[in-house]
C-alpha cells in the first residue's frame, strides 16, 4: 500500500470520479435529471462521512474504545466541536481543540 503505483491509481480514480461528477449536468445535462430524493440525501453526506471519521478516532484512537484520561483525542475533539458551535469560527475551533489536545497530552502523558 502507498507504493507509487497505488498512489497513481488513487489519484487517477479520484480525478475521473470528481471531474465526471462536475461534468455531469454541465456537459451531458440534456440526458440527465436530478432526482429530488437524491438532492435531500446529499444534505446529510458531509455530516455523516465526517462524523464517521471523527468518532472512531476520538473514542478509539488505538483501535480499542478508550474513555480514560489518557485519551487526549477525546477532550480535544469535544473542545473543537464545542468551540465551533459557540464561536461559529471554524479556524478558532481547530486551534482551540488542538491546544486542549496538546495541553492534555503534556499534563497527563
Amino acid at each position, binding site marked *: *500500500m*502507498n507504493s*507509487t503505483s497505488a*498512489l497513481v491509481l*488513487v*489519484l487517477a*480514480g*479520484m*480525478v475521473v*470520479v*470528481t*471531474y465526471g*461528477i*462536475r*461534468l*455531469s*449536468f*454541465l*456537459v451531458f*445535462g440534456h440526458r*440527465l435529471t*436530478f432526482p429530488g*430524493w437524491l*438532492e*435531500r*440525501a*446529499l*444534505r*446529510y*453526506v*458531509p*455530516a*455523516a*462521512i*465526517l*462524523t*464517521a*471519521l*471523527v*468518532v*472512531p*478516532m*476520538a473514542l*478509539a484512537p488505538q483501535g480499542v474504545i478508550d474513555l480514560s484520561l489518557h485519551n*487526549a483525542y477525546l477532550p*480535544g*475533539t469535544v473542545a*473543537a*466541536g464545542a*468551540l*465551533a*458551535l459557540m464561536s*461559529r469560527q*471554524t*479556524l478558532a*475551533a481547530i486551534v482551540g*481543540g*488542538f491546544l486542549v*489536545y496538546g495541553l492534555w*497530552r503534556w499534563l497527563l502523558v
Partner: protein
Amino acid sequence: MRPFFAGARDTIPMLLGAAPFGLIFGTLAIGAGLPVWFTLGLSALVFAGSSQFVAVSLLSSGAVVPVIWLTTFVVNLRHALYSATLLPYARTLPARWRWALAFWLTDETFAVVENQLRQRSSLHDGARYWLGSSLAMYVNWQVWTLAGVLLGQSVPGLASLGLDFAMVATFAAIVALQLRDRSVLCAALAAGTVALLARDLPYKLGLMLAAIAGVTTGMLAEAWLGRTDAPAPEETP
C-alpha cells in the same frame, strides 16, 4: 470593472476561508508520509478539499483503493447538484467553456456564481465572471497547498506532534456547525455509532456502512421532524 476581475473579487472572502484548509491539507498530507507529487497532484487535478482530506485520512489508515474512490464519489456527489443548478446559465456556452468551468466547480465558486447569475436574466458576460471566480479559487488552493507542503517538510516529525489530531479537530469543527439542524444531528449520531461499531471491518468498509446509515437516518428524521432549517433549495431543472 471587467467581469473576470469582478468574479475574482467577489470570491475573495471564500479565498480567505479556504486558505487555512489548503495550508492544513498540505501539512497533514506530508506529515502523513505522502509524497509531494501526490499531495500537489490532489490539489491540482482533483481540486476538491473535503475529498482530499478524506483521502489522506483513509490512506494513512490503510484503506484499499476502491474504498477511496467510492468515498470520493459520495463526498463529491453534491457537485452534481451544482452542475445541474448552473446548467441553465451555461446552456448557450461553447462546449470547451463548459468542460473547463466544470473542472473548477467547487462549493465556493458555486455559491458566488449562482448568487450572481440568479440576479441576471441571461448569461451576458457571466461566463467570464464565473471563470474569474474559478481561477481565483484554483490558484489560491494551489498556493496554500504548496505552503502547507513546505511547512510540513521544514518541520520533520510533525506527525509525532499530534498532526493526526489536527485532522480530527478539523472534521469535528466543520461538522459541529451543521448539527443545529435536528435531522443532520440524527444523521451524525447514526453515522458515528455505526462507524464506531464497524471500525474493525476490513478495507474501511465501516465508513461506507456509516455513511449509508447516516444518510438514511437523516432522511427518516427529516420525514418525521419536518425540515428544521430555513430556506428550501431552489428547484433544479
